[in-house]
């Protein structure tokens, strides 16, 4: 998607309109002005509030700059990047972030598909089901993180007694702490994934499934041969959105472990460097690296599945 970000040259836009009725130039000009009048304010807000900070971050990332000691601000070129990329801690946090992303998105895809199937097929409880599933979607991430942190807590939680684990300390080790973070994240975001998949499911004509059934395809075969291939685009969009989102995980880590037990993620590192340690230069460099990684993931997705997406989007843009 981001490969198509640069604005299309005006000629391209002009050729796109050619399939429309030919309009009077005067009218076309009016339309053009109105277009910018209407879209301009939103465009301005988006560019000003994100464009400037991004450029500012890139600039500041080239300095050795600590907020509490502005006198010592010093241009060091790519020095901050070298510091970060040669630091074992950064790579561990990169690993943690990647692990959380891969695990949660994979589980969400499977679980989300099951949810979407049930939502699509269930004739009863339909409204109740869709209403219930929107609660995790809408709930504040901080709230869901607290709910899960307390559920797993060995002081307050019901998880240990329910599973017969006694006083097991979930937040005492890296793996178990990461597990709880993943559970909270999966619970909160699977509904979103399942709704995107449901949209894909709904687009498959019932005839296809009927035909497959008549031809003797069993349930699993129908899923594998008919349903999945026909909703590739929806799966792609869902995967892309969720992967980008999961890679930026911050709220639940902050609430559930505050980065303890080596559960720090890249977003958390950027936060800690800039806000807590006021190492503005170093923190900005972490932010830039994080942004580059996210863009890389997006580009990778688009490259790998370009055909699917262009089929999906071709009729739209």
């Amino acid at each position, binding site marked *: 998607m981001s490969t198509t970000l640069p604005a299309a040259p005006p000629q391209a836009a002009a050729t796109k309109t050619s399939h429309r009725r030919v309009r009077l130039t005067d009218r076309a000009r009016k339309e053009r002005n109105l277009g910018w009048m209407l879209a301009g304010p939103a465009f301005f807000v988006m560019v000003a509030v994100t464009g400037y900070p*991004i450029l500012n971050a890139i600039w500041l990332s080239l300095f050795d700059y600590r907020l509490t000691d502005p006198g010592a601000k010093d241009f060091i070129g790519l020095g901050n990047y070298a510091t970060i990329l040669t630091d074992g801690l950064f790579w561990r946090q990169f690993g943690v972030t990647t692990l959380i992303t891969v695990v949660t998105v994979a589980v969400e895809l499977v679980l989300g598909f099951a949810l979407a199937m049930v939502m699509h097929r269930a004739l009863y409880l339909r409204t109740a089901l869709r209403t219930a599933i929107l609660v*995790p979607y809408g709930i504040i991430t901080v*709230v869901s993180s607290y709910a899960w942190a307390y559920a797993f807590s060995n002081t307050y939680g019901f998880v240990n007694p329910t599973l017969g684990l006694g006083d097991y300390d979930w937040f005492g080790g890296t793996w178990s702490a990461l597990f709880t973070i993943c559970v909270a994240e999966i619970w909160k975001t699977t509904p979103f994934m399942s709704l995107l998949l449901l949209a894909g499911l709904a687009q498959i004509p019932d005839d296809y499934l009927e035909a497959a059934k008549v031809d003797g395809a069993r349930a699993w075969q129908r899923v594998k041969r008919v349903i999945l291939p026909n909703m590739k685009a929806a799966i792609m969009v869902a995967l892309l959105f969720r992967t980008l989102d999961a890679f930026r995980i911050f709220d639940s880590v902050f609430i559930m472990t505050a980065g303890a037990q080596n559960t720090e993620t890249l977003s958390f590192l950027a936060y800690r460097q800039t806000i807590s340690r006021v190492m503005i230069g170093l923190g900005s460099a972490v932010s830039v690296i994080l942004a580059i990684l996210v863009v890389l993931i997006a580009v990778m997705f688009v490259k790998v599945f370009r055909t699917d997406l262009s089929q999906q989007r071709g009729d739209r843009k």
Partner: protein
Amino acid sequence: MKASRSTQLFWIAGAILIILYALIPVFWIVSLSFKAGDDITNKQFLPTVWSWENYKTVFSSDLFTTALRNSVGMSIIATTISVILATLAAYAISRLEFPGKRAVLGVALAITVFPVIAIATPLFNLWRTIGLYDTWLGLIIPYLSYSLPLSVYVLSAFFREIPWEMEQAAQVDGATAWQAFRRVIVPLATPGVFTAAILTFFAVWNDFVFGITLTSSEAARPVPAALAFFQGASQFSQPTAPIAAAAVVVTIPIVILVLLFQRKIVAGLTNGAVKG
């Protein structure tokens, strides 16, 4: 659709499982919020005695009530402005031909892709310099830019489904493009605008990153950020149950919106995302 009795039973069982999956953690935090005294550490799902004590605690605490006022105020202002701007932009994108249209969509897409924290930390520097740090405006502005892309996509998807001919007809009858927009499209688009408003409200209400990076006091700190600071507050000897109560309070608006507008929210999410 015909389905045999046993398959329907299978799907019903699935539906019940999913409803439990979605609601158990919510019931858990509700139940925790009603625990008092020794119940808080009883490690059982339900309290032995249901108590309003934690709600009394949070509502008598300035930390929470101020944060709640901040959250409600900033969310409503940001949602309103965001949806107005997005409505105008989405109309232009789905109905008009103008150069730079793809740039608008591209920027919107780039923002949804960009990590919030990577925006928040530079804004932290900038806001401190120009005096927007720890103010309502300092949070509303990033909320706007962050919620705009979603609203623009959702609304464009809705606007594309509005019948062209209606607008054409109005223009044939002598209406200008602007009149066609106001008299014909606006009434048709209102449900879409409404949905975009709900989704925007969810996004802004949920904000945590801007809330903790761009505030330092109660002046503008929203509830999610304030919850994280309950820990150190001296007036709560045991902040767990009060946090649960505060968490329940801020979840109530979400639940109400979901109950009232379930159908619209589902439509908005699926249309905006897949067709956008």
